[in-house]
């Protein structure tokens, strides 16, 4: 066995140019696939982490209060029980935020645009200034009660400049029509499709517009030491709240199972009836569970690319090994004449293919890791349109070890399949037939 493996290795080194070319083809395919896998691996974590910063939390609690006529109001009036539960949970909490929000129509000089506006206590949420860079205006102007920060895209579509007064038409939490007036304090760099989510105003003013008292709010955000603590912290806080306050059940699935856990939670709210306030606890992972579908799509794409590339490479490998066998037909005859069995000849070629595949795959992964390292050095800045998928303005990658191992396994198997036919033909040759064949 060892002898055959050694001969296979020696054969590979005998034809360095051919081996390098075949190995490079395999390495290139593996590198591309590994890069996509690495990007997909970091994609969901980066998006979730960036969204955590924008939404100011990894774990969220919102209140649903039954008002007049069994109507549901989104409000937290007294958060003492929530605060106590967060403290008692032992979760690694960096800070707690309180926000209200509404979906309304911004109106400026005949132009209208639907958007969401988040009301934040900017004296507390100082980190938002670091995360959301302004292209125009200043965060200091947010000291004005009715100041507003809009994303570049929304500001451009409304054709507003810093200092302009913008009307906003919205509904209060009880569903009554209301109108407010914002003064544009700043324009943030565009965040692509997420621009709609990045309008910020002062919590007090948003509360006055939606009909809440200054000390009330709609959602408590709990920012943890990192995304990895999210699920454990959510469980711990939920456990502390359970029994003390009315809570919506977590992790429910809709009957058809076709909704995200967050949507299922919202549907559950419509079906249930209660009195007073009932709290809903959810996590950034649940809100962004559809991101997982994007990751799955990326991984599927990588898989398809892997297969397509290797079908092409397999054809090359099959042809190359057919030629190699023809070139070495005399050698095969000699080996067979010296007592090497048919299986030995077949194994020798399969070993060659296996070593070639492993060498190419390892080189491909190494190249991909180097490329990832180099790409991640580039600072695209927090003003990049794609900042939501980056980590602090840098493209980042995470290659799950099992996925890399699976790729190597697939490539090894495909290469063995590609070589199986020529190796089989070589094994079937009789010593006499091989020795008398003229090249």
């Amino acid at each position, binding site marked *: 066995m060892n002898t055959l493996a050694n001969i296979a290795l020696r054969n590979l080194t005998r034809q360095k140019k051919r081996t390098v070319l075949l190995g490079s083809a395999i390495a290139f395919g593996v590198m591309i696939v590994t890069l996509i896998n690495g990007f997909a691996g970091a994609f969901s974590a980066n998006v979730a982490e960036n969204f955590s910063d924008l939404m100011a939390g990894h774990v969220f609690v919102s209140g649903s209060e039954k*008002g*007049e006529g069994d109507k549901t109001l989104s409000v937290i009036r007294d958060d003492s029980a929530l605060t106590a539960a967060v403290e008692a949970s032992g979760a690694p909490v960096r800070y707690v935020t309180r926000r209200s929000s509404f979906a309304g129509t911004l109106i400026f000089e005949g132009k209208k645009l639907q958007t969401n506006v988040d009301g934040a206590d900017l004296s507390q949420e100082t980190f938002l200034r670091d995360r959301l860079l302004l292209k125009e205006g200043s965060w200091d102007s947010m000291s004005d009660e009715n100041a507003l920060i809009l994303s570049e895209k929304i500001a451009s579509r409304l054709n507003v400049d810093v200092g302009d007064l913008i*009307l906003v038409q919205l509904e*209060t939490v009880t*569903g*009554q*029509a*209301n*109108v407010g007036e914002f003064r544009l304090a700043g324009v943030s760099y565009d965040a692509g499709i997420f621009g709609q989510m990045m309008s910020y105003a002062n919590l007090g003013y948003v509360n006055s517009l939606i009909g809440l008292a200054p000390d009330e709010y709609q959602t408590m955000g709990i920012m943890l030491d990192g995304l990895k603590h999210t699920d454990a912290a959510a469980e711990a806080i939920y456990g502390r709240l359970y029994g003390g306050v009315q809570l919506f059940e977590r992790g429910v699935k809709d009957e058809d199972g076709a909704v995200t856990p967050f949507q299922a939670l919202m549907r559950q709210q419509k079906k249930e009836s209660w009195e007073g306030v009932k709290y809903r606890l959810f996590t950034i992972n649940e809100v962004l569970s559809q991101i997982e579908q994007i990751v799955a799509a990326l991984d599927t794409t990588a898989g398809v690319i892997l297969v397509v590339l290797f079908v092409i490479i397999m054809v090359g490998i099959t042809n190359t090994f057919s030629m190699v066998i023809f070139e070495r037909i005399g050698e095969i005859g000699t080996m067979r004449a010296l007592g090497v069995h048919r299986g030995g000849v077949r194994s020798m070629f399969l070993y060659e293919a296996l070593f070639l595949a492993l060498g190419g795959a390892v080189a491909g992964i190494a190249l991909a890791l180097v490329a990832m390292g180099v790409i991640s050095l580039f600072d695209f800045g927090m003003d990049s349109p794609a900042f939501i998928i980056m980590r602090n303005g840098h493209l980042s990658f995470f290659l799950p070890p099992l996925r890399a191992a699976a790729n190597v396994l697939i490539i090894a198997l495909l290469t063995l399949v590609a070589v199986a036919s020529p190796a089989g033909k070589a094994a079937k040759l009789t010593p006499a037939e091989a020795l008398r064949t003229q090249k």
Partner: protein
Amino acid sequence: MKRFIGAAVLALLAAAPAAFAQDARAMLAELDRQGDFAGKDFAALYTIVSQKPGEKDSVTQVRMFRRDDREQFTMLVMLPEVNKGQGYLREDDNVWFYDPTSRKFSFSSIKENIQNSEAKNSDLTKRSILDDYEVAGTTEGFVGKIAVWVIDLRARTKDVSYERIVLHVRKDRTMLLKQEDYSVSGRLMRTTLYPKYVELEGRLMPSQMLIVDELNPGERSQMTMTEQSLAPLPDKVFTKAFLEQVNK
């Protein structure tokens, strides 16, 4: 004697607002009666022409069926062609929207605008001004050359879209000529003019309404009511099945 006169004047001053409020309430009760078809079914075709700056005028046509006894209504969209077959159904306190493309019902609201116009579902349904609002003040004024009572109303309930409305009611005959709708913050959002009425079995129904969006200059909708009828309607008209069937 002086004391007696003084007391009488004070009593009159104190009683005056109450009397005004009483009169205003009577006017509101009459307005409610005019729009209430209790004991009968009501059907009409409404054509809404909406104007928006820089856009072609859009025409929306809806057929409205009302059964005020049970606070039910069914509204069927006839125009534009692309939305034909869409409908609204009020059952108890729920308003459902039916989309024939997806063949699904979804929650809607009486406060929603009809298609892309300035008119709301609630503009076509039975009103209960007395139940929903209380009189905050009454003054005199004019709409054009017509003398009117200007009745300032504040919402009693959060179920209505507007926290404050101001009604301009003809003095010589209880007929609403103009309505102003204000936001919670006190800003004028919408003005509705009622230039034409038709009489329907002793009740006055506005046959034309001009709704002006005060927040978006130049945006307005003119609503015209035709083919009004008080003939009995089959019960099935007020069911989800009806909206589904008319699309088959």
